[in-house]
C-alpha cells in the first residue's frame, strides 16, 4: 500500500502538470472586457491538482497519512487476478464491438464470464447469451431508435430494419 500511494501520487502529479501545460496553450490571463481567458479555469484547477499531489508526496516522505505504515500489499495475487479478468474481459468486449458489433460481442462476453469464470450450466448461459442481445435490440433500436454499433455484422440487420421501419 505504501509504495502504491507514492506511485499513484507521482503519476497524478505528472498528469496535473500535463493538464497545466495543455491549458496554457490557451489564454490563461485576463482578456480586457471579456474576463478571464478560456484557459484560466482549467489552468488554476490543474495547479490545485498538482499542489494536492505534492502534498500527498510530501506527507509520504514525512511518514504520515493513511498508508504510512501499511505493510499490506496493494493488490494480492487474488485481487490482481480478479481485476485482470474483470477489467480485461470488459476491455476485450468493448474492443470487439468495433469489429463484430454489440450483438456479437455481448453474447461472447456472457459466455466467457458465466461459463468459463462462473462455471454455470450451458443452458443457463445460453439463455442469457441469447436473451440479452434480443432485449437490448428491442429496447435501444426499436424503442429508443438508437442504433448501436454493429461492425461488419451490419448487413445482417438490413432485413430487420426493413421489417421495423
Amino acid at each position: 500500500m505504501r509504495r502504491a500511494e507514492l506511485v499513484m501520487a507521482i503519476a497524478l502529479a505528472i498528469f496535473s502538470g500535463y493538464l497545466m501545460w495543455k491549458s496554457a496553450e490557451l489564454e490563461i490571463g485576463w482578456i480586457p472586457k471579456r474576463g478571464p481567458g478560456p484557459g484560466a479555469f482549467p489552468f488554476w484547477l490543474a495547479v490545485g491538482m498538482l499542489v494536492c499531489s505534492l502534498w500527498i508526496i510530501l506527507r509520504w516522505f514525512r511518514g504520515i497519512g493513511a498508508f504510512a505504515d501499511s505493510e499490506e500489499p496493494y493488490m494480492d495475487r487474488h485481487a490482481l487476478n480478479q481485476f485482470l479478468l474483470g477489467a480485461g474481459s470488459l476491455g476485450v468486449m468493448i474492443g470487439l464491438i468495433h469489429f463484430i458489433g454489440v450483438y456479437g460481442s455481448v453474447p461472447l462476453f456472457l459466455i466467457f464470464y458465466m461459463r468459463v469464470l462462473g462455471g454455470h450450466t450451458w443452458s443457463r448461459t445460453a439463455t442469457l447469451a441469447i436473451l440479452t442481445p434480443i432485449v437490448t435490440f428491442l429496447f435501444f433500436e426499436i424503442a429508443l431508435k438508437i442504433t448501436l454499433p454493429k461492425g461488419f455484422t451490419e448487413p445482417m440487420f438490413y432485413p430487420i430494419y426493413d421489417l421495423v421501419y
Partner: protein
Amino acid sequence: MEVLNHLLDGFIVAAQPLNLALIIFGCALGLFIGAMPGLGSVNGVAILLPMTFLVPPASAIIFLAAIYYGAMYGGAISSIMLGIPGASTAVATTFDGRPLAMQGLADRALVAAATASFVGGTISVILFTLFAPPLASVALAFGAPEEFALMMLAFATFVGLGGDDVPKTFFSIFIGLVLSAVGLDIVSGEPRLIFGDISGFLHGINFLVLAIGIYGIGEILWTIDSSRGKLNVSQATVSVKRILGCLKDLKSTVKSMLMGSFLGYFVGILPAAGATPGSLMAYGVAKSISKDPKSFGKGNVEGVVAPEAANNSASTGSMLPMLTLGIPGSPTTAILLGGMVIWGLEPGPRLFVNNQDFVWALIASLYAANLFAVLINIAFIPMFIWVLKLPFTILVPIIFILCVVGGYAPTQDMHDVWLMFGFGVVGYLMRKLDYPMAPAVLAIVLGPLAETSMRQSLLMSQGEFSIFFDRPVAGPIMLIAIVLFLLPLLKSIMGSFRKRTGKADA
C-alpha cells in the same frame, strides 16, 4: 393553501398510468439494487439514467427518484441478512441489524427497517413540501456570485464534513472540475484540453461517462475485490402473524424513529453531506439517548430504526437543495441534476417558476414511492433474500453490459465508451488508495455552472475577487465555506495542541 393545490396537481400527474407504473417498477428495481451488496442508489441511478430516454422527462425523473427511494429501503436488506451494507448509507444498519439476524430475529430487523424507512421518508417529504417553495423564491434573487458561493459551500462540505483524506478530497474536486472544462469553451468557443487532438473530446466529457465509469465499472471491480465471493446469508422465518407482531413491538421505538427522521433530513439538506453521515449520526444519538445504551451493537431494534429513518429522510433532504438551488445534496442527486440538463430542464430556482408541473409531480411521486416501497418491501421479503444468493458471475456481466450500452447511448460515440472504461479502471485503482470519488462526480456536474458563474461574477466586478465577499448573501456563504475548508486543519491543530498539553499534565 397554494402548496396543497400544487401538490394536488402533482398527484394528478403522478397518478397517470405510465407514471404510476414507473413508480412501482422503480421502487421494486430500487429495492433489488439496494439489496445487492455493494450497489446502492447512486449506482442504480447512474447505470439506468440512459434507459430513461424512452419516456418524457417528468416520468424519467419520477422513475429515477423511485429507484433512489427503493434503494434506500433495500440497502437495509443486505446489511441485516449478510452483515455487508447494501450501500454506504446502510452501514449503520449493520451494527444492530446483523446481531438481530444472528439471533434468528432477522424478520424483526427487516420489518423495523422498512417501517422506520417509511416514517423517515414520510416526515421528510412533508418537510420538503413545506420548505421547498419559500427557499426557491428566496433563491430567485440570487445572482452569479451567490451561485458560485453555494457551489463552493457544496465542495467545502466534502472537505469539512466528508471525513475522507483531505488532500485526496481536494484532488477529487479539482480533477472533476478540470474534466468538466474539456470541450468547447462556453464563452469564447475555443476548443480546450483536446488530448491528442482526438475529436471525441470536442463534445466535452459527459458527466454520465464519468458517473457510469466510477459507479458502474469501478464499483463492481471494487465489490468483486472486497467480497471475495463467499457470502453468508442468515436464515429468516417470515409469516404474516410474525410481521404483525413485529409491527406491534415497534411502538417503543417511536422516539428513535422521529429523532432519526428529523436529524437525517437536516443533515441531508447540507450540500454534499447526504445519507451516510446522517444515518451514522442518528445511530450515535439514538445510542446516547437510550435508557440502555449497552444493548446497542448486540441487537437493539432502536439501533436499526434510527439510522434507517435517517437515511431515507436524508435522501429526500438532499433533493431540497438540488431542486431549489440547483446544488445537489448527494452524489445521487448530482446525477439526477445532470439528467435534468440532458432532458432540457434548467436546474436552479427558476425550475419552480418555469417547470412547476414537473417539480410538483416529482414531489407527489415521492409520497407515492414511499408508500409503494414499504408495501413491496414487506410483502416480498423472501424474494429479496433470494436476490442476495444470486451469484456474482451472473450479475457482474449483466451490469457491465448495461454500463457499456448505457455509456454509448447519450452521445452514440465509441470514444465515450472507452473513456468510461478508463475512468472505471482508474477510479477503482484510486479508490483502493482512499481517494473519494463522489466529489469528482459532483464537480463534473457542477463544473460548467461553477465556471460560468465565476466568469460572470468576475466580469461584473472587473476581476475583483472581493465580489464574492462583500455581497449580503454570497459573503456569509463564502465565509462558511472557508471555515469548512479549514475545519480539518483546525481539528488537527487542536488535536496536536491537546496532545501536547496532555503530555505536559502527565
